[in-house]
């Protein structure tokens, strides 16, 4: 959880791992300050986010609050891309390595504010409130960013899904 949170901010494996170690040490040192107002996982995620932002400022020389101030400035088209051919077997599609690789790349290349929300919600499985709390944004912004992130990924992955589109409603496996 901590590693992926750091990765969502830093987009670099080595930096994310160093940051994750630092975050865990920080959490260990400040364990006494955890009062149970938030879930432990949210508290830990917040520590990781702060560590990630600190590192980002260091590497990019960014102004103190520039990351927090990012808003939905990405005007544009957040509509999904249509798929029309969905006859192939979904399991085969999802088992393909290149699809996983394409998804990794697409997630990494999402604009920062969308990637962070997407990773906390859909990878770390924090709920909307927890995500809002961890990123210090409001729940409405979480919903908007998440929707946009998902639509951007859908659009981006359509070329891979086009020839391997799933049968209708094949995967309901997760409680989303």
């Amino acid at each position: 959880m901590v590693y992926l949170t750091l990765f969502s901010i830093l987009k670099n494996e080595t930096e994310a791992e160093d940051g994750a170690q630092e975050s865990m040490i920080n959490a260990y040192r400040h364990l006494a300050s955890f009062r149970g107002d938030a879930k432990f996982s949210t508290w830990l995620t917040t520590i990781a986010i702060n560590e990630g932002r600190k590192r980002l400022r260091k590497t990019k020389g960014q102004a103190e609050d520039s990351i927090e101030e990012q808003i939905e400035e990405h005007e544009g088209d957040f509509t999904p891309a249509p798929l029309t051919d969905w006859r192939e077997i979904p399991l085969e599609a999802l088992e393909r390595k290149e699809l996983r690789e394409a998804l990794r790349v697409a997630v990494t290349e999402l604009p920062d504010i969308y990637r962070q929300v997407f990773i906390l919600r859909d990878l770390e499985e924090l709920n909307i409130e927890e995500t809002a709390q961890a990123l210090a944004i409001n729940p409405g912004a979480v919903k908007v960013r998440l929707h946009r992130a998902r639509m951007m990924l859908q659009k981006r992955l359509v070329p891979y899904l086009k020839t391997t589109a799933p049968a209708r409603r094949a995967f309901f496996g997760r409680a989303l």
Partner: protein
Amino acid sequence: MKLDCKHVWEHISEYIDNTVDAKLREDIELHLEHCEICSAILDSTRNILVLTADDRTFELPVGYSKRLHERLREEIEKSKH
């Protein structure tokens, strides 16, 4: 209310998260019954989320846990002195 495709797309994410109200959910489902394009968009988005949650998609670096434990052990040792 009869929804058009664009309206359905705007709510796809909330529909997946089950945060749309009952009436809107019903309208979306009615639309999905007849619209293959929106159904395919919904399925492809869902599958992307399934794939995201698959442990093989975002793996931890090899040796990550071992290195983390070593670092934590060092830190704990340090704090004892």
